[in-house]
């Protein structure tokens, strides 16, 4: 079942690509530029590894239309992003906000770094203790000297 949906989504993405009803030559270039800047930070939910700016999926087209209209209506970027996250969740943001559910995402790498440094430090310290001087006994010293002179067995 999951695969059916997946295959469907892939086809949806491809279908969008062939349709290419994208060209909007009559649009105000300033609005287009703002829309592009905004949609480049947003994820298309149909083709999840594409930005809303690049995606040719139908939904992405509709959302670009929506964003275009909101820009024309004088909404600022925060308001438009709030509009989208209210409907699709933080998942649409490529730059997720810092909040309780994303603490692990944001701070996890630093925790791992600190933990890793700690482990490395302890390991190195432990190793240094292991190599700490252990003077040879008189017998061992004599044998070592024989080996070095090449007189051994």
């Amino acid at each position, binding site marked *: *079942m999951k695969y*059916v*949906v997946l295959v469907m989504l892939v086809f949806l993405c491809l279908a969008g690509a062939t349709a290419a009803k994208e060209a909007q030559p009559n649009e105000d270039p300033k609005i287009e530029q703002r829309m592009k800047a905004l949609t480049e930070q947003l994820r298309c*939910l149909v083709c*999840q590894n594409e930005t809303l700016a690049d995606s040719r999926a139908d939904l992405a087209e*509709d959302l670009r239309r929506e964003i275009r209209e909101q820009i024309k209506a004088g909404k600022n970027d925060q308001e438009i992003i709030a509009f989208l996250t209210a409907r699709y969740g933080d*998942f649409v943001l490529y730059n997720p906000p810092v909040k309780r559910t994303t603490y692990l995402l944001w701070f996890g790498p630093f925790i791992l770094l600190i933990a890793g440094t700690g482990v490395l430090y302890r390991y190195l310290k432990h190793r240094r203790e292991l190599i700490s001087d252990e003077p040879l006994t008189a017998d061992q010293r004599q044998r070592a000297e024989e080996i070095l002179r090449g007189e051994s067995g």
Partner: protein
Amino acid sequence: MNKLLLIPLVLFIALVAFLLVGLNRDPHEVPSPLINLPAPDFTLSQLREPNKTFSPKEMRGKVWVLNFWGTWCVACREEHPLLLEYSKTGAVPIYGVDYKDDREVALQMLNQEGDPYVLSVSDPEGRTSIDYGVYGAPESYLIDRDGVIRFKQIGPITREVWQKEFLPRAKQLSQ
């Protein structure tokens, strides 16, 4: 020292556990922020009678399902016979939003294959669907008496989903 050797093994097992959970999850199922929030309002023209409208406000006091579908959507066709079957049981009324579709084609399909919906409305530009955060039809919302969304199914409703998610919740919410 032997204990130290176990650390990579433990880490490896933890990694495998994460991967196993990850593999069994569908990355296309994004949790909806609309759960437990009021269902967005709309007034759309009905599919069968275009001069009549429908709004979720009319459903106050009832537990119902709002299903987003389209004739272009393969998975919706897969879901269709099940919806027909469930609509006949009368357990929960199912309303449809025909999403980015052609009215004639949609009506033709419903007439040929059966109509599980109490009524469907037409959302040709997909604006209402955007308000509901629909991104992969079919999607179905279970809405309670106060007009609050209680559950959302992304992708087709299966027997399992209907028995385990929709029916028990609908029963509980109707009490």
